[in-house]
């Protein structure tokens, strides 16, 4: 047993290198695709090349005759055992939800949809045979793009009669959280500033590093599924609910998973097909997608048109904000597909004190890959809209963008603050984060340089972008999710097993796919329990070990899962105290617990918790009124979200001759409460920033008019590498706003960088060329778009007097990317 007295200083706050990294970086670990079972068969999918087509016939004879092919199955070969792909979040009671078979027998509704599966003894033979499956299609008109969908002229699913799936509305006057936005708009129209904008959130592809992979082993008493998923527990529940296999007969394992970013928060057709084939053939099967399939058929993200009306008085004090979203769900409503844009409902008011607010979200169906969560999920879209339009307001008023924000934001002494969207922000200090960011960024010097370049008419102009973001994270709380008609809760479960040798096994329902849970959770337990970091082992990602959990997404693992762990540890200490009192022949009231050791006050008598674990195991001597165990478990459901925030400042250089943009400096000051591991936080912030910057500058999933994904490889879907980014200036406030709704004081950080950075970058690019008559550039801000914006002249620059709406055809941001 390790001597606990020698335990080093507090673990929380220490920049421990991640326990996981050696095996992950060297590849000496088990990914789903590495798993090989005796007699395992391999699957290859046959996918529709058409965005919308009825399936006339499927001729599988040639494929069946191909070497080592065991079976070729199409939709009509399956019955109910195939199950269905679920939508767990119907956003309104009257939502139009198309049925979603993992493998439809009659009609394909997007290019890439699976219409048949080949089963062979090797992956190569399966792939070869898949090319021999002869599917006859009768191509149907396809609806691509939000604006086309809204017209309802061509229907993604003719039997639904419309492409409009659901309209979700929040109105502050109706909710009693604020006044009437229409009145504010009317007042602003005559006696203030009205800013009307349409912004487009392009479609993105999560592009996780490890392609999706699934192995199903139906041999044995339980059916086991290994999947590269973020959500093993939800996956098990959905398999049981839709395929008729009792949950107790299903074991789902998420081994090491190579990234998700929301893209593996899905219950996929591929998993359901692998499940059905394995059961049908009573053989283990494996399916691993190719990168091309991943880009085409794994769920996409974002894809919204945002119609925004911001009302303010002449000094720039916002009086109302009206938001109408049109959100493209793709061909089906994925597991939380409709809910993602609705999550934005609570965040368009951001850090500001708006008196009135209305939010509408119209979801539409199109013949494209279904969309769902992508890092930030709803909140980046909201943050982009508000932070872009606050810059526009600043331009109208003629003040610095930080000044306009300060006029409207919640002051630090006003917390806790109930927003116009009805959320209660517990803590925050926007002044402190902004001051620190400004200082670190060198704001005033860069503004001076910008001025100098403008005056000189330099070929390279400098722009400064601001994003003062907040977000709601830690999804949870279950009651709130229930009020939004989400199909599940948001609690998390943890257990602590005190082993006989003094080691500690902790089991969490969170399911890491790159976050570093094993390290951060070990730090929390080491501190809380007073045992060495090295003695803590974190188990997760297997429903047989972590029998209960709600998995990892929405920046929830630490703030919900970590808190569950704390509660379980506290129970262990309580039980151990009872045992300690018995062994020390002392009163529990006289025991102190410190550094992993109970001591009797005023004496040198004591016992370490790891000794107590051994004593409980031996069970030779324990109180009559307790079981011989100090293990414990806890389920934690938070009462509120938590609200990290930060000020992000970005300087971009724009080459006005070519439209090329170059990042000059990026500073972020995030206030995320207590930091468990600064190194992991830095990693999350860096990666998050790059993903958000990539939306601003590089990434866009483009379908042509026929619904074919044009950006179907990394040649056309541009992911940045380290060569395209700069060293970020990451700072934190000196006196963070500790979260008051959990005991650790933590706030989520997994999505913060992505949520904050996109508008900071676009604001900077626009700021660099605003004096040339540019007030918007559609994302991604390609050199061509920047160049054309500069040369579009200043005809679209609105003034406070005219406040021309931008909602006409042909205006900037009308291009949905289709048909390029």
């Amino acid at each position, binding site marked *: 047993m390790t001597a606990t007295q020698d335990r080093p200083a507090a673990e929380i706050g220490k920049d421990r290198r991640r326990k996981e990294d050696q095996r992950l970086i060297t590849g000496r670990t088990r990914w789903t695709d590495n798993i090989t079972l005796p007699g395992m068969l391999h699957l290859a999918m046959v996918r529709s090349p058409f965005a919308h087509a009825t399936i006339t016939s499927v001729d599988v004879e040639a494929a069946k005759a191909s070497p080592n092919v065991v079976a070729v199955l199409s939709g009509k070969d399956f019955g109910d055992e195939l199950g269905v792909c679920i939508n767990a979040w119907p956003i309104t009671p009257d939502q139009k939800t198309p049925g979603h078979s993992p493998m439809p027998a009659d009609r394909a509704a997007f290019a890439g949809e699976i219409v048949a599966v080949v089963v062979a003894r090797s992956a190569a033979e399966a*792939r070869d045979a898949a090319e021999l499956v002869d599917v006859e299609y009768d191509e149907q008109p396809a609806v691509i793009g939000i604006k086309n969908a809204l017209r309802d002229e061509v229907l993604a699913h003719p039997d639904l009669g419309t492409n409009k799936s659901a309209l979700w509305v929040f109105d502050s006057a109706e909710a009693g959280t604020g006044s009437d936005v229409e009145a504010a708009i009317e007042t602003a129209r005559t006696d203030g500033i009205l800013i009307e904008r349409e912004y487009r959130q392009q479609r993105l592809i999560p592009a996780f590093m490890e392609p999706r992979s699934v192995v199903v082993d139906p041999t044995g008493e339980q059916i086991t599924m290994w999947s590269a998923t973020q959500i093993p527990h939800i996956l098990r529940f959905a398999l049981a609910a839709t395929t008729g296999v009792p949950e107790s007969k299903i074991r789902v394992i998420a081994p090491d998973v190579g990234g998700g970013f929301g893209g593996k928060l899905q219950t996929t057709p591929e998993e359901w097909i692998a499940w059905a084939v394995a059961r049908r053939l009573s053989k283990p099967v494996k399916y691993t997608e190719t990168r091309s399939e991943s880009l085409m058929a794994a769920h996409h993200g974002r894809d919204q048109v945002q119609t925004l009306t911001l009302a303010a008085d002449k000094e720039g004090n916002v009086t109302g904000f009206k938001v109408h979203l049109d959100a493209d769900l793709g061909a089906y409503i994925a597991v939380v597909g409709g809910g993602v844009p609705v999550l934005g409902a609570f965040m368009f008011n951001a850090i500001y004190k708006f008196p009135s607010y209305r939010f509408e979200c119209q979801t539409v169906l199109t013949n494209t890959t279904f969309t769902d969560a992508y890092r930030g999920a709803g909140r980046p879209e909201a943050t982009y809209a508000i932070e872009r339009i606050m810059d526009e307001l600043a331009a109208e008023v003629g003040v610095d963008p930080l000044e306009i924000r300060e006029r409207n934001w919640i002051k630090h002494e006003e917390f806790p603050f109930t927003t116009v969207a009805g959320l209660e922000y517990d803590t925050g200090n926007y002044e402190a984060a902004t001051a620190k960011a400004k200082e670190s960024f060198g704001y005033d010097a860069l503004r001076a340089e910008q001025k100098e370049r403008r005056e000189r008419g330099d070929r390279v102009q400098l722009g400064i972008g601001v994003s003062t973001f907040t977000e709601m994270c830690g999804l949870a709380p279950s009651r709130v999710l229930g009020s939004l008609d989400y199909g599940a809760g948001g609690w998390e479960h943890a257990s602590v097993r005190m082993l006989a040798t003094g080691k500690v096994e902790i089991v969490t329902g969170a399911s890491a796919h790159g976050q570093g849970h094993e390290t951060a959770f070990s730090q929390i337990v080491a501190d809380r329990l007073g045992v060495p970091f090295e003695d803590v082992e974190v188990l997760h990602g297997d429903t047989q070990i972590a029998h209960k959990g709600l998995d990892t997404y929405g920046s929830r693992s630490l703030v919900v899962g970590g808190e569950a762990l704390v509660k379980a540890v506290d129970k262990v200490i309580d039980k151990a105290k009872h045992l300690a009192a018995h062994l020390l022949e002392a009163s529990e009231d006289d025991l102190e617990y410190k550094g992993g050791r109970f001591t009797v006050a005023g004496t040198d008598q004591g016992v370490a918790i790891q000794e107590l674990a051994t004593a409980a195991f031996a069970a030779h001597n324990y109180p009559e009124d307790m079981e011989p165990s100090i293990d414990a478990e806890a389920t934690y459901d938070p009462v509120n979200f938590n609200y990290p925030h930060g000020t992000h400042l970005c300087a971009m250089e724009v080459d006005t001759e070519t439209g090329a943009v170059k990042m000059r400096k990026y500073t972020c000051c995030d206030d995320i409460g207590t930091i468990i591991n600064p190194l992991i936080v830095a990693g999350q912030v860096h990666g998050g920033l790059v993903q958000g910057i990539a939306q601003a500058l590089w990434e866009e999933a483009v379908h042509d008019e026929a619904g074919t994904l044009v950006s179907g490889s990394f040649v056309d879907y541009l992911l940045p590498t380290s060569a*395209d980014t700069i060293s970020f200036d990451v700072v934190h406030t000196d006196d963070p706003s500790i979260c008051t709704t959990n005991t650790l004081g933590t706030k989520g950080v997994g999505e913060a960088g992505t949520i904050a950075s996109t508008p900071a970058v676009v604001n900077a690019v626009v700021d660099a060329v605003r004096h040339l008559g540019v007030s918007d550039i559609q994302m991604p801000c390609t050199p061509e778009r920047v*160049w054309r914006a500069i040369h579009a002249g200043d005809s679209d620059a609105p003034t406070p007097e005219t406040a021309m709406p931008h909602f006409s055809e042909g205006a900037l941001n009308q291009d949905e990317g289709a048909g390029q």
Partner: protein
Amino acid sequence: MIPVQFDYLAPASVEEALSALGQHGDDAKILAGGQSLLPVLRMRLNAPEVVIDLGGIASLRGIRDDGDAIVIGAMTTHHDVRDHALVKEHALLLSKAAAEVADSQIRHRGTFGGALAHADPAGDLGAPALALGAQFVIAGAGGTRTVEASDFFVDLFETAIGEDEILTEVRIPKHTGWGAHYEKFVRVAHQWPIVAIAATVKGSIDEARVGLTNMGSTPLRATATEQALTGATATEDGVRAAAELAAEGTNPPSDLNGAADYRQHLARVLTGRAVLKAAGV
């Protein structure tokens, strides 16, 4: 992804390779560095029955001095082209362009001859080879023949190399002491160029050669610009005026990275910059 099954041959000499090629004809594909071929095979865009790997033929590698030219073996990697002293001395433009090919891993695998034979108009080496007046030595059953750069690039992914022939080496006339710059315009570092300009100038400026990447179905020369630059003084205004002619006769593609008119605009702006840098202005 998994390619369609193919047979693999690894000849030890050019003669063996030609013999294999003669035997299998258009069922065969030549494998050089594989940086373009393997993705094509893995995405099943092509399914040759035989792949003939030139990697084992030592005579195809290396760079040598041949009097008024340097000779680059077809299987020399981009990395070696970039770093070779002879290239830096006599064909600086090639060294600069090779440095811009994709990323470091690809430069260590991809080959000079393979890239030129692939003839992707967005490839980084065609325009410099054209600008430098490269001569392509092509071996066939009947011996070797030499093709001028102006005749080598025929169309999109099409060169003067016959189905039964192999590009063995490329002769680059010496441009000793010429200044050079390869101006590559990309959105992310590892991307194919949206447009790139290969400029090399003698003196300041006695003569100029300007090649254009991705401005048509083959690499192109900006001949009007070259003529306007000949004998000109390398001033910013003068060079930019000459560069205004750079897009004449080009027919660039339109795609997600830019429409044709934008590419032509880029070609004019970037040609000015490339020539000025090449001239050391």
